[in-house]
């Protein structure tokens, strides 16, 4: 069992190392991720949302629905813990 786990881990690691060959270098300002979607967030945040903190404006305005999902995740986890941990009261027979 441990041998199978070790083999899976090594294979996954080799696959990941294989995939890093075409990745952009660390800190490259011309990588695709820095050029396509996010410049608009930085440049237009003051006129569209009047918030200087760009992370806040993306979190609460441009992608606010993901934040709603995130609070739902916390709520789900909380009620799940209650559901799982609640002890059954002894039935009086």
């Amino acid at each position, binding site marked *: 069992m441990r041998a199978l*786990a070790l083999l899976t881990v090594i294979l996954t690691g080799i696959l990941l190392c294989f995939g890093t060959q075409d990745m952009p270098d660390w*800190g490259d*300002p011309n990588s695709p991720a*820095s050029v396509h979607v996010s410049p608009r*967030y930085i*440049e237009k945040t003051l006129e569209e949302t009047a918030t*200087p903190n760009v992370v806040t404006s993306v979190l609460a305005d441009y992608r606010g629905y993901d934040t709603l999902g995130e609070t739902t*995740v916390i709520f789900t986890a909380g009620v799940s813990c209650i559901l799982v941990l609640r002890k059954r009261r002894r039935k009086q027979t």
Partner: protein
Amino acid sequence: MIDFILSKYNYWIYIILMMIGFYAMIGKKNLIKKIIGINIFQTAIILFFVSTASKRGGTLPIIEHAHGHAAQSVHAAAYINPLPHVLMLTAIVVMVSTLGVALAIVMNIYRRYDTLEEDEILKLRR
């Protein structure tokens, strides 16, 4: 070759961390060690995302001198990419929630079987 390794060293770090977490998740028998493995695994993914956000020479994505200088133009290359940080705020919350529910389930298992080793639980369950 050395240049290839050095210029992408953030990726090698996260791969090593992720594989340690992955091995702990599937190779260990103790339930708590498996949960710690989940945590390490997800932390490595968060590290990967955040490391894609950095730009050489960029600063934090908070626009300086915001109020009062309305007509100043903002260059995107001066600030680092904010989008992965936003995604990872959500992912950290998800990670903590999963940890909470997993620990609650382990508490339930401990109440029932009085042990936390997977092979002993499987024997008790037969």
